[in-house]
């Protein structure tokens, strides 16, 4: 019962949303791109989106400046 978050093995928690996972991971960056098994999740859907046991999750954070 594990998932992978940015390559790290983490416990799978039934019903956990992306928002809750970001909190659990202590990812404090406000601006992130999230993919579950390669599929993009829109920021507005973080609070409603859950994932399966074994999911591979990528969290890419972006800082301002250009």
């Amino acid at each position, binding site marked *: 019962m594990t998932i992978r978050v940015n390559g790290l093995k983490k416990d799978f928690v039934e019903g956990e949303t992306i928002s809750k996972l970001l909190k659990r991971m202590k990812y404090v960056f406000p601006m992130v791109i999230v993919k579950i098994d390669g599929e*993009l999740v829109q920021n507005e859907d973080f609070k409603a989106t859950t994932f399966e046991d074994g999911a591979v999750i990528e969290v890419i954070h972006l800082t*301002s*400046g250009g």
Partner: protein
Amino acid sequence: MDDPAVIDKLQNATVGIAGAGGLGSNIAMALARAGVGRLVIVDFDEIEESNLNRQYYFLDQVGKSKLQMLKQNIDAAVRSCDVDIIERKLEAGAMSAPFGDVDVVVEALDAASTKVKFIEECLTDLDVPVVAASGVAGWGGSERVKLTRSGKLYLINDPESLSSDEGVLLAPKVGLLAHYQANTVLEIILGVEGGR
């Protein structure tokens, strides 16, 4: 050595660039000089003197439209690049619209929130690679800058850099990421093979 196949591929390529600031102006000039045939660039800003420490503009262009001056600067440098300029702000919900006919999209925006929204919309709406950048502030630490790829998204990133709200923006670091983005665009257009 001139390679006709390389010249041909670049001349037939169209690259979209969102933003004509520190990243965008330098990316546009690098791609034009490299021989990319067409650029589609979107921005709404005017040049300020404070931009000149990193952006590809000149003192006598302060107060003028970034896009018009960028086109002028590219036209003054090379013969082979058509520059389409779209002077407007990218609005959420229609951010990918100007880039419907490009081969590669480059994210060269400023605020992190706009970057994320733009990348999300392009990955959802378009079927072309998106080359983005994050962590342009500061100086030194060149070895921290890395390319990470996730599907169609190519991110040039210094993960330890401060944001531009906290850190200073200067030509070398901004230019480093801009040219890393431009070099990645070439790799996408020309392929990895033969790139040495």
